[in-house]
């Protein structure tokens, strides 16, 4: 994205973190992520009120010294709820990306390593599954599993599997053709060993890049399902669900939607900033572009 530190002019390869934090965007992103993680970890100590205690204040009370972000329809302190909401956003995003990554990568490797008919059929099925717009696929899965926070995370995770499988397959195909895989096979390595010791370490950088680039949209996606009423249910202080609950009263109490949305936006933006930077460092093809 922004001016990258040129590796060539530096006398020594700087450490990974020095390079990661080599752009102002990435520094801001990292700070925000650390803050969100801190909020999530220490929510009980940081939140001035109980996130679920009603009648803390007048219904839909505006911002005040006691209630920084105002109050919601049930007289709950929005500031406290936003702090607790931090526990859902990144955790949900990481869970969904982990599901997509693990199963997608496994599928991609198996298909590409299997080769021949396995690869032909597998690739066809993956391509077909990619024809589901992700949100439609996720909603279909929620429809089957039932509405709820865990099911929404599962749905978003599953809907990402074809995408990860396709990228892993393509990357594995180029690896399988390389000499070191051939030599491993020649010395009698088992399939499991080849996959775990030779293919996976070589796939790791690209998988990490895709996973980080995906994390932002995964956080957004799960919050979207909650907003639609298909994910986290009231009174859970999940940001998307809070926005959904505040929807009817926006006119009279805009603070019910401004702060949870802002928290969500900043988190996603931070993850995207760091993800962009990380992909720039890890992916050699990306490095040339900037």
């Amino acid at each position, binding site marked *: 994205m922004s001016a990258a530190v040129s590796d060539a002019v530096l006398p020594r390869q700087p450490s990974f973190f020095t390079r990661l934090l080599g752009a102002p965007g990435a520094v801001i992103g990292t700070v925000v992520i650390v803050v969100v993680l801190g909020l999530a970890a220490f929510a009980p100590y940081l939140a001035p009120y109980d996130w679920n205690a009603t009648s803390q204040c007048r219904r839909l009370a505006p911002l005040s010294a006691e209630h920084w972000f105002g109050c919601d329809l049930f007289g709950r302190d929005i500031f406290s709820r936003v702090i607790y909401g931090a526990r859902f956003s990144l955790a949900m995003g990481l869970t969904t990306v982990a599901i997509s990554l693990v199963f997608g990568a496994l599928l991609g490797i198996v298909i590409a390593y299997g080769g021949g008919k396995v690869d032909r059929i597998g690739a066809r099925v993956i391509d077909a599954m990619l024809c589901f717009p992700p949100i439609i696929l996720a909603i*279909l899965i929620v429809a089957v599993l039932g509405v709820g926070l865990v099911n929404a995370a599962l749905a978003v995770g599953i809907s990402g599997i074809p995408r990860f499988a396709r990228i892993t397959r393509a990357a594995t195909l180029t690896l399988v053709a390389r000499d070191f895989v051939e030599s491993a096979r020649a010395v009698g390595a088992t399939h499991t060993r080849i996959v775990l010791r030779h293919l996976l370490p070589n796939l790791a950088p690209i998988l990490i890049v895709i996973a980080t680039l995906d994390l932002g*949209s995964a956080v957004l996606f799960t919050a979207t399902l909650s907003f639609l009423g*298909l994910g986290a249910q009231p009174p859970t202080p999940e940001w998307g669900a809070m926005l959904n609950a505040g929807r009817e009263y926006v006119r009279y109490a805009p603070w019910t939607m401004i702060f949870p949305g802002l928290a969500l936006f900043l988190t996603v933006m931070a993850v995207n900033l760091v993800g962009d930077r990380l992909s720039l460092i890890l992916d050699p093809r990306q490095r040339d572009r900037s």
Partner: protein
Amino acid sequence: MSARAILGRLLGVIPTLLITWTFVFGAMRLVPGDPVLLMLQGTPISDSAMEAARAKLGVDRPLVVQYASFLANAAVGDFGDSFRSRQPVTKLIAAEFPKTLELALGGFLVGVVLGTTLGVMAGVRPNGWVDTLCMTTALVGLSLPSFWIGMILIQVFATQLGWVPVLGSGWDALILPSITVGLFLAGGLARLTRNSIIEVMGQDYIRTARAKGLTTVRVVAKHAMRNAMIPPLTLLGIQFALLIGGAVVTETVFARPGIGKLLVQAVLEKDFPVVQGIVVLTTGVYVLINVLIDIAYGIIDPRVQE
């Protein structure tokens, strides 16, 4: 692209649709509970009436027969009746579809104009301040929860300023929803366009154009844009998925009728025929659009053969 190749592409759609529809059929059979009981929603029913209802829905037949009839019906656009309104699903979808199309086109327009502008401005002078500004804007577009920005737009431009109505069927009621849908699309498109422009600007023919003494604007508009826009435009088929996603959310935010709102409502009410119908339809449209773009690409760009 020869007629033969075009026909091949079109026929290639069939196995794809078969796989996606099989997945939908399988998913729907995994729904816990008897379809008749789901349809009745707790209303008591006698055993004989239950049998009759099962026969009417066709769920008493062997799975293979059900599968075959599902595929046959899906191919002609028959998805049975809604559990709630008891109206044919096709009729419900047909009534809402134009509304969603309208929104998708509006969002598409905003997204393409905004995305291309940002991308070109950023790509012409990479790593300058304009680039940083444009790409930060694009990242903001990608990171903004569309439901949140939608609510803010309503609050500011409809409620406070009163410039546009929130509801209504006029074109002015379409402005804010289109921006909401378009912003997300613009972010991704801006990034693609930027990369593409940077690549093209390094080509020899651009240097030639510059050497002729043409202004930067003319070089970009006349020479670079044509070739640079091909990669982002081919990805517009994939962007259609984002438009659908954007429409689902935006319709809920703006309380606009449409396919997305119908779908979310159907999931919440466990109205499975409607869910099934919409999923089959959207995947079908998505696949078809992508094939058409693929074919158009082959015709426009002679370098692409097969």
